[in-house]
């Protein structure tokens, strides 16, 4: 077995025992299936009588639909029918993307297909149902729409101006939501500060770019009144509720099956109008209906994220102690707030997370979220984190430069001390079990930060601009009911696990957590086998089927290990207890003298045991051999939810070193370091994959990714040739290390690990670039940091 990489969590039992799988970097079994091409994705599914759809989407950002003529198109080869909003609305009720717990949100009703007005380029307005997708696309060309193009409100910065285009006249203006946080007295503190620094940062819209695009097959069975949905989402039980609610079905007769999912990153946890239309079409036609978004559709209809402009101010005393921080954030979310999580959460997290690692006695934050005629914006991996971390860490670097302090030192003296938890963030959010001090110390040690100052000076002599940065951050993971449920959304914060010993001696586990490629199945297996005392290969896992798994929330907000994993642990312990009770009765001994190792019940003091297979055979086939009154249940189920706090936070520290070509503006990230404290690591290799993958996405946000729009609201780079994501050549070495502070909220002690890279990399990369540029008096403040922006900052163009 691999070396143990994590500190021992005493609640999990000795690590020097057979079947001790928690904490080991074991290869995941389901990777083989994918390498072998044996995955089952939505598009792999073909059902008898299945039809295909293609959506007619608005080519304009804002336009009135005067009329839609489908007569000629309906005659096209292979076409079964063509629906507009009128037909779809007969079976699908509209929705509103607001929640009740975060103050007033104002968003209008949204239906699967736009009725009179299209409000973003890509909004569906009609749908062709045909025998093949190609035939459906042929017919799209024959639909005649009489459009009246309207002025579009593209720019979020003018969305609240008196002469702005009002996207929803019934709301009176384009304001969706606003929130203010005010702790202490920032104005007074700024007056007392020895140094005050300010900056304004821009973050472009980008999107998730999942390898597998969104897809759904809806199959309405009239005879059984049953709706079966094959869907590549993240939250099957949430979708079950929503589809039942809006199509007026019996929720118990809606089944959601999510088999393999090719990446999600939060993109696939929302309710999309085209997917709802597909369920409505199946209900109307009584046939299975398939929709797979193509890449153009993905770019213009998958949710976008970020799109923020944030200004910030930080006051410190002459010793570098932070006295006050103030931020003002503006975000544009497209024409609708997404359902059911709303499009307010990114801004909410910016307000909650800014300054979170530090003691900041006076803190003020204002967030404003506005409508605009662009693709809807919503929660994507590391929701709000990149903005919160970037503004905080940019201000801290600026303060350090201003008072002449080292970049690591100013952070160290301001951290919320590791021994002071439970504590609160500057915004008032409860924090516990964090380790900013230990993580930064570890980061500085593995980076060997001292050498970079020397290197920077040497490079400068050679005409190279190089620089480095370090940051610290908090990650929101493992949300409690206080995240969505309290606001009225039917999104479970509890997850369940069910585990059984079968007649063959095999273990079957099912969980409400889902797998989207990150290795959820592997860690569930490791936890179950570890806690039960069986070989890893004897555990089989079922995920992603509302008919076959316990009820629960699914996988998002880094909740799989901490919440779903704890449920598996509890269920495994219960089953073990049942097994040992039965074994004790059969073996006529005390339960306490028995244990399970390598699929056998063993006597702790030696002597003959009994294999789980034999025990199961006895219970299932020769039950008369068990003493009367023995509980014969070889099945156990458990659930878990986080109570008492809104989230279990994780923390991390990151560093990077960059160099800049002054002639071309090209930035090279030479090396990247990340120290993560996610508590117990169930599989360190998978944790490190999460960190590295996240860092790559963060590099995307910092340097490459942007949904480029023109003044009329046309997206201009909706192809993989033009929307730039980092590729192998753009990936630096990423050194990952760990500090382990277990969460006190669970036995397993795991916190989430999925958000750090994406949330922190944009900040540390920007800080390192500005550290380099500072040598020539330049600065960049807008992401992605393109070569052209660098050359402009350098005054070269």
């Amino acid at each position: 077995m691999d070396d143990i990489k994590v500190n021992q969590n005493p609640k999990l039992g000795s690590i020097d025992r057979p079947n001790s799988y928690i904490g080991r970097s074991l290869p995941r079994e389901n990777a083989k299936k994918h390498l072998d091409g044996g995955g089952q994705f939505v598009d792999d599914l073909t059902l008898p009588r299945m039809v295909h759809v293609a959506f007619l989407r608005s080519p304009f950002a804002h336009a009135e639909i005067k009329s839609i003529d489908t007569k000629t198109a309906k005659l096209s080869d292979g076409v079964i029918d063509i629906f507009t909003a009128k037909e779809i609305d007969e079976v699908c009720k509209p929705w509103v993307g607001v929640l009740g717990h975060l103050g007033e949100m104002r968003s209008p009703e949204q239906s699967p297909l736009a009725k009179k007005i299209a409000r973003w380029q890509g909004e569906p307005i009609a749908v062709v149902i045909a025998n093949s997708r190609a035939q459906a696309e042929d017919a799209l060309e024959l639909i005649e729409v009489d459009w009246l193009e309207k002025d579009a409100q593209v720019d979020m910065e003018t969305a609240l101006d008196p002469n702005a285009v009002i996207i929803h006249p019934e709301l009176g203006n384009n304001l969706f939501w606003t929130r203010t946080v005010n702790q202490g007295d920032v104005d007074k503190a700024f007056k007392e500060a020895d140094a005050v620094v300010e900056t304004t940062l821009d973050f472009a819209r980008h999107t998730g770019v999942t390898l597998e695009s969104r897809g759904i097959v809806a199959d309405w069975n009239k005879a059984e009144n049953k709706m079966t949905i094959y869907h590549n989402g993240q939250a099957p039980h949430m979708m079950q509720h929503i589809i039942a609610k809006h199509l007026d079905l019996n929720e118990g007769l809606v089944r959601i099956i999510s088999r393999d999912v090719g990446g999600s990153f939060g993109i696939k946890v929302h309710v999309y109008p085209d997917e709802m239309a597909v369920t409505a079409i199946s209900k109307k036609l009584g046939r299975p209906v398939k929709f797979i978004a193509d890449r153009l559709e993905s770019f213009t209809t998958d949710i976008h994220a970020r799109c923020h402009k944030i200004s910030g101010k930080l006051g410190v005393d002459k010793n570098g102690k932070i006295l006050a921080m103030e931020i003002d954030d503006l975000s544009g979310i497209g024409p609708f707030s997404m359902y059911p999580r709303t499009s307010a959460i990114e801004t909410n997290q910016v307000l909650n997370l800014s300054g979170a690692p530090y003691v900041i006695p006076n803190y003020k934050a204002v967030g404003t979220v506005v409508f605009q005629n662009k693709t809807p914006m919503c929660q994507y991996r590391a929701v709000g984190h990149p903005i919160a971390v970037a503004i905080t860490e940019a201000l801290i670097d600026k303060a350090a430069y201003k008072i002449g302090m080292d970049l690591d030192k100013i952070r160290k003296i301001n951290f919320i001390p590791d021994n002071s938890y439970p504590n609160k963030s500057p915004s008032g959010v409860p924090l516990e079990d964090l380790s900013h001090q230990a993580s930064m110390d570890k980061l500085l040690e593995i980076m060997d930060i001292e050498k970079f100052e020397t290197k920077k000076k040497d490079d400068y002599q050679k005409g190279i601009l190089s620089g480095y940065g370090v940051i610290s951050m908090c990650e929101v993971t493992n949300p409690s009911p206080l995240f969505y449920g309290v606001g009225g959304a039917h999104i479970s914060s509890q997850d369940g696990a069910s585990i059984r010993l079968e007649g063959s001696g095999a273990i079957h586990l099912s969980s409400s957590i889902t797998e989207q490629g990150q290795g959820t199945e592997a860690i569930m297996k490791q936890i179950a086998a570890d806690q039960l005392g069986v070989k890893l290969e004897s555990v089989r896992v079922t995920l992603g089927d509302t008919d076959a798994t316990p009820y629960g929330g699914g996988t998002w907000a880094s909740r799989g290990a901490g919440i779903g994993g704890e449920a598996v642990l509890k269920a495994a312990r219960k089953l073990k207890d049942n097994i040992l009770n039965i074994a004790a009765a059969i073996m006529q001994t005390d339960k306490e003298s028995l244990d399970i190792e390598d699929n056998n019940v063993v006597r702790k003091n030696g002597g003959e045991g009994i294999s789980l297979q034999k025990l199961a055979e006895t219970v299932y086939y020769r039950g008369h051999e068990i003493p009367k009154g023995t509980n014969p249940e070889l099945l156990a189920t458990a659930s878990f939810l986080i109570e008492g706090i809104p989230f279990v936070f994780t923390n991390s520290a990151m560093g990077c070193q960059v160099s800049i070509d002054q002639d071309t503006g090209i930035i090279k990230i030479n090396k990247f370091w990340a120290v993560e404290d996610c508590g117990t690591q169930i599989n360190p290799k998978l944790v490190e994959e999460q960190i590295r993958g996240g860092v790559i996405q963060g590099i995307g946000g910092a340097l490459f990714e942007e949904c480029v729009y023109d003044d009329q609201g046309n997206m201009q780079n909706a192809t993989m040739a033009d929307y730039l994501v980092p590729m192998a050549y753009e990936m630096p070495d990423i050194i990952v290390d760990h500090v382990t502070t277990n969460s006190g909220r669970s036995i397993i002690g795991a916190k989430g690990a999925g958000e750090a890279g994406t949330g922190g990399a944009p900040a540390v990369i920007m800080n390192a670039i500005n550290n380099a540029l500072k040598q020539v008096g330049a600065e960049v403040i807008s992401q992605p940091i393109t070569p052209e922006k660098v050359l402009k900052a350098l005054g070269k163009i």
Partner: protein
Amino acid sequence: MIRLICYLMGGKYMKAANFSYYEAKNIQDAIKIKANDEEAVILAGGQSLLPALNMRLSSPSCLIDISKISGLNDIIIDGDYLFIGALATHSDVMRNEIVSQKMPCLIDILKMVAHPAIRNKGTHGGSIAYGDPAAELPALAVATNAEIILSGQNGDRSINANDFYLGLFETAINQDEIVVGIKYPLLKQGQVFLFDEVCRRHGDYAMAGLIANIILSSNKVNDLKLVFFATGDKPDVADKTAKLFLQTGYDYDQLKNSLSSEIDFAGDLNSSSEMKLHLATILIKKIINKLEA
């Protein structure tokens, strides 16, 4: 092309419109079909054509597949020329022994053309015939004064690359003609081809690129041809600027002024015209640095 038009379509299509498909057995066969159907197009490696079809940016009546024709992927020395058959893939060319001896810069250039999967399918002739102004090979052909060999109903003809590119994706190929090969003049004594480009990511179309055809005598640049790509609507030859460089050496401001008067820089999503002008000027310096190294 894709980047210019996709947004106008509102993201509607990902399956090609109907077309007929013809697998040509030999070159005469392909020519005959093409001569009689104005809307037919040649399919070779398909690396530019197939995405265009799927996005319905192009709806040809017929695809004439020439990829099965034998004898169109030769790489040989033909007198004073290196001849590369139209169907030689980029990978074929990169691995070819003759190319590595006679025209090593072509291998450096092809390393910058997309990624291995694309280079395994994409063909030399396809890239030359497509005439993407941001692609490397058309600029190389112009820089080296290559001859492009076309086969038509009246037999073969040869046209100099300098006369071949007429405008955006527009070439001197006649209706009945097919590119069958490219002839690059072999390097003369003291001659060197140098290449550099600036991309946002490895394998992307460049923000600006330069291929220089340099004649050295006694270690000094005696003659120079500069051809830029990803700067305008076709490979941009900068003769005035080359002459200026020969007179005055590298002077950023002077060369930039000259380039700006000589080339109509057209900005794109990744770089404005101003950026392209700057990078083009910088590329001259980078080429000279390479020469000195």
